[in-house]
């Protein structure tokens, strides 16, 4: 053992439970650090980033020469499984067909960080590379033993090793039936561990290739099992009536009528926690039975959008001078204002928004005496494990979550409330129970992106520099959004929410600046939504940058470049690149306009976006027709996958800019299906061109949300270029462009 290597003790036993594969005789250490919730707070999914050494936990060499990879990331289309498989392949000199990539259940690997924040590659590249390299070296030692040669004479070969006489010794010939897992006592110290994935890109064989995700064939043939598709023998079918408004209270329900319906197994009602559920032998009677229950609720109907808007009004906080948090303050605003040749103020607002993933969530839960099984899809199976345990008053260790590919995550699929309800019904009725949310449940019972209300006062000097930047904003805590009541308020006072303030500090040079923030909690549930605060914040910042540039008579592209400090060279690079590929500056036809914006996501990934928009006066519509994105996300494991993520972000950004808004009316969420909340459709979506700036020496960084932040401002800037009208509120519609702003 090398002295630098500190390996956490982990439960190797977890590996051994796998069906059809048993690795006997390995050292088993106790894994004790798993946090179990004891407080009354809902468990917050707060697992830390992985340690490099965790990598060996996820890999096994199998007797057939292939490698099993328990990819410690949930899959929702971001393709982490394929990108990280490429890292495994690189270290072990194998192909995609040599890897069995598995979405792990909670009893197959120790807990890992939940799948959010575009961290799958950024945080897991290094541990996976390290673990795969350790496995390769363990196999090399087996090859040395087998061939009776010193390990350093055994060279790397395809899916195995080459002996000095040129013989290829495949992994299959080395691995015993029990497989190979690297034990804690077999780890090489870092300086003795060659890392093929860290070599220069030109030597890479797997990294940088456009591998296709191994599940594509299952997806296009309808064979992929999503959570909604799970069937368990003897499964009963449950349904739950959720409170039809914020903090609604259950008054009554007619259980007798529902119970009398043939096929109904039973009804469970608990006024104490407003639970109304029932279980049936088959799903076709559920709708009728739910109606027969005739549940009545008490709702406070006074809460409406106007009240919420008034509470999240940045102007009100400014007049009261009531910002709990000064995020940044340097120089002197007064001095800046005196040096300003032009001054601009702008107020920018963004609405509540929903995830609207196309798959509504679903869970099947089977509560047995010794064990509880859950089948669902979630961005954090260990969180669901905890929550289900808590609902049942059992230990988390008793719960196994079988994970499935998620039909769209976007931050909305951390909890699985359907599984929590199914757990309850399964415990009561002693059967495996399925609970599926419908579209209305998704809109009414999940959490949202918070509203943001920004106010910026800024200026430009006579030489085109930013003289000062005075930015105040109000929104709600995201990461701790579900923490209730007074504890939540206390958290808000103590610290600004990292998710809400994401991307709030502009990259530009500005000596005199101040950024202040106030947090407001309303009854509207808030939590993660793609990119968290980064897109609403960039909307304000990058809209103001355009307003300043135009006021000063400087081209918006030039204005950004001349205000970026040398330390922001990656951002400057992508700006130049996007200007190049979009032919920035080219005159645009009438009724069209072009806009630009850029942002750095989480201090790691730089993205710049140009869009063309068109005003269709006949159809009374604003359309994004073309988009270009240049992005620098360091080492690119799979260009196709990264490009797909960028395209997805541009569509998402166009949709949030032009279409999406959740409104509160009469104490509830007004929108309940796609007729009221309609994401962007194919015919209205832009054609997207992507350019990846690929430096060879940078570590891979965030991709899944990185191209999103610049999109809304780029569109607002383009609409201004086309119409001379400035949209400072999302969503930007034809009506808002021509009636309410200007």
């Amino acid at each position: 053992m090398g002295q630098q290597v500190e390996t956490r003790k982990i439960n190797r036993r977890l590996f051994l439970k796998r069906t059809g594969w048993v690795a006997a005789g390995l050292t088993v250490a106790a894994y004790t650090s798993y946090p179990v919730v004891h407080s009354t707070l809902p468990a917050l999914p707060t697992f830390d980033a992985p340690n490099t050494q965790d990598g060996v936990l996820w890999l096994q060499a199998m007797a057939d020469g292939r490698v099993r990879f328990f990819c410690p990331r949930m899959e929702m289309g971001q393709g982490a499984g394929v990108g990280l498989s490429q890292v495994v392949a690189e270290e072990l000199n194998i192909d995609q067909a040599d890897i069995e990539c598995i979405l792990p259940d909670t009893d197959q690997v120790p807990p890992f960080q939940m799948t959010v924040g575009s961290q799958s590659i950024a945080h897991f590249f290094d541990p996976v590379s390290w673990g795969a390299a350790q496995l390769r070296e363990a196999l090399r030692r087996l090859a040395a033993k087998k061939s009776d040669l010193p390990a350093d004479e055994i060279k790397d070969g395809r899916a195995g090793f080459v002996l000095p006489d040129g013989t290829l010794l495949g992994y299959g010939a080395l691995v015993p039936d029990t497989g190979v897992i690297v034990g804690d006592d077999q780890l090489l110290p870092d300086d003795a561990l060659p890392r093929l994935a860290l070599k220069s890109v030109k030597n890479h064989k797997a990294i940088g290739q456009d591998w296709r995700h191994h599940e594509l064939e299952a997806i296009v043939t309808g064979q992929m099992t999503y959570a909604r598709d799970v069937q368990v023998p003897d499964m009963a079918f449950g349904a739950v009536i959720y409170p039809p408004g914020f903090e609604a209270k259950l008054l009554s329900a007619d259980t007798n009528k529902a119970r009398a319906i043939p096929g109904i197994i039973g009804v469970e009602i608990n006024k104490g926690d407003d639970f109304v559920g029932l279980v049936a032998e088959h799903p076709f009677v559920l709708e009728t039975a739910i109606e027969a229950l005739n549940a009545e609720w008490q709702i406070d109907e006074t809460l409406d959008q106007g009240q919420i808007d008034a509470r999240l009004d940045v102007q009100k906080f400014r007049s009261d001078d009531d910002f709990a948090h000064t995020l940044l303050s340097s120089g002197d605003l007064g001095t800046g204002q005196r040096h300003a040749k032009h001054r601009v103020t702008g107020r920018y607002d963004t609405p509540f928004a929903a995830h609207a993933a196309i798959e509504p969530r679903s869970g099947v839960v089977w509560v047995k005496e010794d064990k509880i099984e859950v089948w669902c899809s979630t961005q954090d199976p260990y969180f669901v494990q905890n929550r289900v345990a808590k609902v049942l008053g059992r230990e988390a260790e008793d719960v196994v979550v079988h994970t499935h590919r998620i039909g769209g995550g976007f931050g909305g699929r951390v909890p699985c409330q359907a599984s929590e309800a199914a757990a309850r019904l399964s415990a009561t009725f002693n059967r495996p129970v399925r609970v599926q949310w419908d579209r209305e449940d998704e809109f009414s019972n999940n959490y949202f992106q918070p509203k943001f209300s920004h106010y910026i006062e800024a200026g430009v000097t006579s030489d085109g520099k930013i003289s000062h930047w005075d930015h105040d904003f109000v929104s709600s805590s995201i990461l701790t959004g579900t923490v209730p009541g007074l504890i939540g308020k206390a958290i808000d006072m103590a610290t600004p929410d990292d998710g809400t303030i994401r991307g709030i500090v502009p990259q530009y040079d500005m000596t005199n600046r101040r950024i202040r923030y106030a947090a407001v909690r309303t009854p509207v549930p808030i939590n993660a939504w793609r990119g968290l605060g980064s897109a609403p914040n960039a909307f304000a910042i990058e809209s103001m940058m355009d307003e300043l540039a135009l006021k000063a008579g400087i081209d918006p592209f030039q204005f950004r470049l001349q205000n970026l400090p040398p330390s922001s060279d990656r951002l400057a690079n992508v700006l130049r690149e996007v200007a190049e590929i979009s032919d920035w500056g080219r005159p645009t036809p009438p009724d069209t306009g072009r806009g630009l914006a850029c942002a750095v996501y989480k201090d790691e990934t730089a993205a710049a976006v140009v869009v063309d928009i068109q005003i269709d006066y006949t159809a009374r519509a604003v359309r994004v027709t073309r988009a270009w994105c240049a992005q620098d996300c360091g080492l690119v494991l799979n260009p196709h996958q990264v490009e797909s993520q960028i395209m997805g972000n541009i569509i998402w950004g166009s949709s949030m800019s032009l279409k999406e808004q959740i409104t509160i009316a009469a104490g509830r969420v007004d929108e309940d299906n796609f007729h009221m909340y309609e994401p962007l459709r194919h015919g209205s979506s832009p054609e997207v061109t992507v350019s990846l700036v690929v430096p060879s020496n940078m570590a891979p960084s965030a991709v899944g949300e990185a191209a999103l932040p610049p999109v809304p401002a780029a569109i607002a800037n383009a609409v201004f270029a086309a119409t001379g009208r400035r949209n400072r509120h999302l969503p930007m519609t034809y009506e808002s462009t021509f009636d309410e702003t200007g």
Partner: protein
Amino acid sequence: MQLLINGNPITVPEELQDVTLLDFLRDFAGLTGTKYGCGIGLCGACTVHLDGEATRSCQTYVSDLDDARVTTIEGLAQTFSGEGLHPVQQAWIAEGVPQCGYCQAGQIMTASALLRRVPDPTDEEIREEMSGNLCRCGTYGRISQAIARVAQEA
């Protein structure tokens, strides 16, 4: 009453005649490749073919089906005379279209019905025809490319 689903006759129990084709497929026939997304005809995730025409199965009742032949994503490849997957499925893999993949069965059923009717659709026709199928992951650009690929290779 009987339905012909992917070439197999399936008897509809009396009490299930007024359920939607979507529920029937998923919860009775065990064909879960067809997806639920909205239940009101607005997302296209539930698209199947009725006599070769793209149809929203959430808006179709079993009792309305008469003699229609139902094809679901599981049976699409059989409707193609060549080897292996249907050309649209092949193109979807070649272009790496799916992200989360949940909407893609519906997208493929709509695209394959379009290509049967219009073997070489214009970009405008593709955009219009595919607009009934929502994709929250934003795979629209790759969908257009995959359809164009099928048209070119035909």
